């Protein structure tokens, strides 16, 4: 992350330079979704324990796998800058590492790989389209990239192709559901509250109607001191 980003932000124009506020937001999003993941993980753990004798324990986690990608797609959707997804994934991975993640040190590597997947998804739309389609594609690539890596890293190639195909299918559905659909909804809901005015997503937001009547006027007129 270091070399690439520092040279980029040093040389880039204002639109692409990262502000401290952006970096903290990305890391906090990583933190938030890591906590949510842990909350959901309990459910996944119970489910996978049930599936263990059947040898399908992995599916318990696959169902919630999409939560991992949420921080990246959401941050990208909010800031609409190239590199946002990758940077967020790396920061989120670093946060998970600090939290004592059970995946170990390579979680940072995982972050890079997932982030690259997401970037590819947005890049295919030339970073021009920020909608459900590009977010879905970003999520799908994240899921596929990380699965390819796990084939080697977690030795998933030792499992039969049928099980693996099922696993990929569940992961893709989870990715689209959580990190595309849910993130899109969450981003839009957030933009409606008006707190995103200084980000690309919020700047597009149209103002909400304030009605003309003012209940205060009469009081104002009658009060003399």
């Amino acid at each position, binding site marked *: 992350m270091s070399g690439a980003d520092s040279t980029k*932000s040093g040389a880039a124009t204002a639109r692409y330079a990262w502000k401290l506020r952006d970096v903290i937001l990305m890391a*906090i999003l990583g*933190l938030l979704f890591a906590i949510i993941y842990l909350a959901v993980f309990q459910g996944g753990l119970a489910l996978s324990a049930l599936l263990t004798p059947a040898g399908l324990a992995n599916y318990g986690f696959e169902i919630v796998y999409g939560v991992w990608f949420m921080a990246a797609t959401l941050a990208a959707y909010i800031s609409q800058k190239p590199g946002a997804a990758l940077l967020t994934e790396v*920061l989120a991975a670093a946060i998970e590492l*600090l939290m004592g993640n*059970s995946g170990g040190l390579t979680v940072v590597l995982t972050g890079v790989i997932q982030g690259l997947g997401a970037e590819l998804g947005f890049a295919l739309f030339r970073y021009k389209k920020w909608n459900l389609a590009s977010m879905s594609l970003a999520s799908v690539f994240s899921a596929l990239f990380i699965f390819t890596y796990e084939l080697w890293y977690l030795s998933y190639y030792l499992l039969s192709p049928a099980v693996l195909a099922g696993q990929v299918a569940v992961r893709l559905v989870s990715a689209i559901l959580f990190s595309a659909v849910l993130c899109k909804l969450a981003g839009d809901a957030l933009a409606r509250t008006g707190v995103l005015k200084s980000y690309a997503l919020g700047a597009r937001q149209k103002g909400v109607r304030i009605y003309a009547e003012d209940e205060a006027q009469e009081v104002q007129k009658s009060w003399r001191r």
Partner: protein
Amino acid sequence: MRQLNPSLKALSLLLLTLLLAALRQPWLNLSVFALCGLLMLLSGVRPRALLLTVLPLLILGAGLFFSGYRFAADSALRQVAAPGAASPVLPFKNSLLSQADASRVSNGLVLASRVFGFAGPGLLLALTTDRVRLVRSLGQSLRLPPLFTYGLLAAWGMFSQMNLEYARARAAFRARGIRVTPLSLRLLRPLLIKSVRWSEALAIAMESKGFEGHARRSSWRTVPIRLSDWLFLGLCLLPAIGFFI
């Protein structure tokens, strides 16, 4: 462990993890995990804390073991069942296990032990590393821009606050008689708003203290690289001998 240079320690442990991933030796994985556990206890990690982090690993490991046992790929079975390959994986030649069964067990073990082999170094780093020292050394040794390292640190500082906020948001809904699931959009909204607000407030606070993302800064405490750091790196690279045996 706490005295080591955090950057080099992280790098060493990362290399170790990658070596384990490439070697696929169940007993090596498990002994690395045991060694890491021992090092953690020696560096003052409370046994109870360690146990709590290991519990989910056991479930995870068990799950993977059965996946590997029941749904082994054909190629994996052939590979493991080959006469030369079976012995290092399963040193005990149990006559009760058929050849195929033995390879299934070893298949499961490869998958399951992996979880422990990876978690060990990760936990060792997370539980024995001072975060501020890590950030200082990332700046000093690896020249990472403070924008990212201190931004990360500021976000990390909100950890307990975020947990509280999560509970608080759920309480707010409960107070109004509304039930929400952990991933409900209605629950996410206040949390996301807080995230945005916090990042703005923290950035403002840091900049008002003169912080600049790419400016040169001094370091109150230097984090040196000593001989012991290189020795630890060597230790972590020791499993590489496995390639030559």
